């Protein structure tokens, strides 16, 4: 891909990044930080490409270390964010939904 297209995509992504986050309430700042943190774990894709092209054992070793680190970022990030958000969710089920279900249920 040529430099100009990459630059265009980057600039547009900056604005999308500003836009989607400016609406987030402070209640969700921590899950948001954690969720954004998980997203940059996608460097795993880069680490896989580098490891897949490695011919030298040392290069492979370093690339595999990058794969392990990136996977930890990606998987750990999404799991811990989900756990955080599950608490917001679970509380609603305990608090309101069961009684609402009883009223509306058959």
């Amino acid at each position, binding site marked *: 891909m040529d430099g100009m297209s990459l630059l265009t995509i980057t600039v547009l992504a900056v604005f999308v990044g500003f836009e989607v986050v400016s609406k987030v309430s402070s209640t969700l700042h921590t899950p948001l*930080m954690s969720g954004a943190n998980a*997203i940059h774990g*996608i460097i795993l*894709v880069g*680490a896989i490409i580098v490891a897949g092209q490695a011919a030298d054992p040392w290069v492979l070793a370093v690339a595999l270390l990058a794969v392990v680190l990136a996977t930890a970022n990606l998987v750990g990030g999404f799991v811990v964010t989900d756990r955080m958000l599950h608490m917001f969710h679970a509380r609603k089920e305990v608090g309101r939904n069961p009684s609402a279900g009883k009223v509306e249920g058959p």
Partner: protein
Amino acid sequence: MTLLDPVWTALLYLVAAVCFILALRGLSSPRTARRGNLIGALGALIAVVTVFLSARLENIPWILGAIALGSAVAAPVARRVRMTQMPQLVALFNGVGGGAAALVALLELSHADNPWVRLAIVFTLLVGAVSFAGSGVTFAKLQELMTTRPVLFPGLPAVMAAVLLAAVAAAGVVIATGSPPLAVVLLLLGLAAGILLVLPVGGADVPIVISLLNAFTGLAVAASGVVLGNVLLVVAGTLVGASGTILTRAMAAAMGRSVTGILFGAFRGGSTAGSTAVSERPVRSSSPEDVAVLLGYAQRVIIVPGYGLAVAQGQHTAAELAQALESRGIEVDFAIHPVAGRMPGHMNVLLAEANVPYESLKEMGEINPEFKTADVALVVGANDVVNPAAKTSSGSPIYGMPILEVAEARQVVFLKRSMRPGFAGIENDLLYEPQTSLLFGDAKDSLAQVLGAVKAL
């Protein structure tokens, strides 16, 4: 095995990028947040499957093994970590992501055939290394493996300047020649810069630094996307870089501080070191029973939880106390300052974990007008976020920070460990007001005693 068509590859990466955007947008509301996060994970899965199908890769068993190892380490830790320790876990995950980006850039140096690509490599190396080392130091501070106070030594600014100058020089040579040994030197200089950047940052400001380093890692990932010519990495990294920057500024604004002030304030001497000075003025201290009577015969109580509650793991006891009061027909709300807890929004997570109904958690703008109608404001382990000095004394370090206006309530009860000032290191005049009483002790123990006394009423 036939490879995926480049058009299909690009389309699948686009789908993944859209998933990431939807994930960030979903996190803007508690209702859609969890689904948003799952959409993000789905996007990541699509991207990882796509890379295996679209490029001719060697060493696939090794790569799969490394992925299994990374997941096997990270997933159980993420599942088991206590919610109060979550900020340092986020720091840790952020750091390893930055480290991965730096390693990818280092290995791509031998394939880089023009100075522009080498510029992107140098950027990724440096920023990734800063993020890795900086996150390591924030982890150590939050986990209390080292002091949470700002670490300063004479000549720190000179050392930092020397490291940065050396890094710029090494970066210039790497861009011009592509020398691998100097790239390793650059990586080491980046690590040193990351450590030096975070060492002088103290206590309450550490979460803002995590957010900043999160944005740094995003930028490093975006730059590595330029190196590899991978649009998904460019888009995802830029998204995180941009949103992380906004988030960092929002967090700093909520604390009445500037990002540059946090990072470089200590260099100039005006840090958040905090003082341990204790005033001689008299305060009204009270017993758990007194507090229980105040609370038990009130009509409306507003609980203001803070950092001290999080540290003492007192959120469950606070929730029980709220339930006990509500069963007596008392209206109870939690007033959440944007930076209560160890990081912004952290208190919401802790109270949600303790099963406090979402409707009882009131944000600052919503609850501030209601303090006037409250009989008792119960401040648990918070100090700076309720300090009227933020409004009245223009010379105060926290001047301009929005606060919870507990002084408006008829009675104010502070549960505090000691008379020591908060992180900002300034005294809270509210402690000496006639309507204020104090109960000293660990937040959790004090709450448990008050809870017992309320039940005995």
